[in-house]
């Protein structure tokens, strides 16, 4: 590998590109593109939520279909996001247009939400459900008043994973004709404008991290009595924060031995 520190191609140049107002304004500016990317992501996430949460709740309630849900999650990890984007855009009914990207992104947002919703609902304690039934609750009431509230923290974790993933993948939507932050990266890559490529990449990375942290806070609010010091409530799951349903037990010898619940795996970021 050759390490090349050419003066024209460093991260610093990306920042100097970012310091020009013209990079941000106008129809091809970063502000517009970032806005589009957030809107597309929100639409896709909403679509994924509308499908995944009811299905996950229903399957979790009757505790069936776990293997299908797992298989879907695994398949979602194996199929590359860009592959589905390109495939859909080549199919006549979809084509190169905004709707195509939204549907493709929703497909990738679906597995984490479905997996977490199913897992959390199915994991509600049998005794708790028995007690609810004993109090005279009907199956629908058990679902909405017992299972859903108990499952909510884990569902929120899944939504957050999906949201970050959908946003990351939305960058790629520009390659199939949408106006997202992938646009300046693609154009800059073709025209060898590396300051533009790097500058935009910095914005994408910062937005993704900000989204993760923000949703981490929302998730912490939905998690009653989230344990530990304040920073754990603020930091996202992947950073060792409260997002994780449970932390692995301490590794020191002689520590008490609460068997750690294995985390639902994060799927591939696009």
């Amino acid at each position, binding site marked *: *590998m*050759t*390490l*090349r520190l*050419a003066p024209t*191609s460093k*991260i610093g140049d990306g920042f100097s590109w970012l310091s020009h107002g013209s990079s941000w304004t106008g129809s091809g500016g970063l502000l517009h593109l970032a806005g589009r990317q957030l809107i597309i992501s929100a639409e896709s996430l909403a679509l994924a939520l509308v499908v995944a949460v009811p299905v996950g709740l229903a399957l979790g309630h009757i505790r069936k279909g776990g293997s299908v849900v797992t298989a879907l999650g*695994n398949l979602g*990890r*194996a*199929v*590359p*996001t*860009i*592959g589905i984007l*390109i*495939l859909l855009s*080549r199919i006549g009914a979809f084509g190169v247009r905004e709707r195509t990207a939204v549907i493709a992104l929703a497909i990738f947002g679906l597995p984490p939400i479905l997996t977490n919703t199913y897992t959390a609902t199915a994991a509600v304690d049998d005794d708790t459900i028995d007690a609810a039934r004993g109090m005279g609750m009907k199956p629908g009431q058990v679902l909405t008043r017992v299972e859903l509230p108990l499952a909510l923290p884990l569902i929120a974790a899944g939504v957050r994973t999906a949201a970050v993933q959908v946003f*990351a993948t939305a*960058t*790629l939507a520009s*390659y*199939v004709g949408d106006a997202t932050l*992938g646009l300046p*990266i*693609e154009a800059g*890559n073709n025209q060898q404008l*590396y300051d533009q*490529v*790097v500058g*935009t*990449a910095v914005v*994408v*990375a910062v937005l*993704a*991290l900000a989204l*993760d942290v923000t949703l981490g806070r929302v998730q912490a609010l939905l998690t009653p009595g989230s344990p530990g010091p304040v920073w754990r409530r603020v*930091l*996202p*799951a*992947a*950073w*060792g924060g409260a997002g994780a349903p449970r932390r*692995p*037990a*301490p*590794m*020191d*010898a*002689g*520590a008490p*031995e609460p*068997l750690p619940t294995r*985390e639902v*795996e*994060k*799927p*591939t*970021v*696009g």
Partner: protein
Amino acid sequence: MLSALVVPRGCLRDNAWICGEYLTSRKHDILHALTLHVELSATALALSLVVAIPLTLIGMRRAWLRSAVLGVAGVVYTIPSLALFVLITPYFDFYSNTPIVIALVGYAQLLLLRNIFTGLAEVPADVVDAAQGMGYGQWRLLTRVQLPLALPAILAGLRVTSVSTVALLSIGGLLGRGGLGQLLYDGYQQELNAQVLTALVLIVALALAYDAVLLLVQRLTTPWTRAAR
């Protein structure tokens, strides 16, 4: 590149999704892309394991170090792949695959380390106590007791990592690099349906092949996990 000049006939002219003629006429391109994809993903996986070793040793020392290591890995993991690929590209030859492999190694760390730490945490404290009582030193404890017992979890992590690495590598195609991703993107730009589908199927098949091979390794190296069931 002669094959691109041949006047298309039959299913190639019709731009069919499944086209034997495409497979035979572009066999060389397809095999080249597949070979490159295997090489790059295997390199990335091997390097990921190598990098994970010192990080594991650091994380085992203190709980806060473990949080810190996982925290940094989590930040890297959250950065969208296209952005990370181009962010580290300027430091290398622009058309080399090195930055992509390095980015993949970075992504792999969260998946690997989380499983390694979980696996190590699941090693029963009694077993560690017993080994220490028998006079096992730290190194021997790690290599003879903790790692073997954590192996199922570690291999499970490696399986997830391999699948995600194969898929992520294909995004390099958007930057004109990497194996099957480039085949996919070229097919898209040339509006060649057969190439799009072939590349996509090969990527998924390769991911599943990695998973199957590692599952076999898991079965062979940790026979006790099956006996226990």
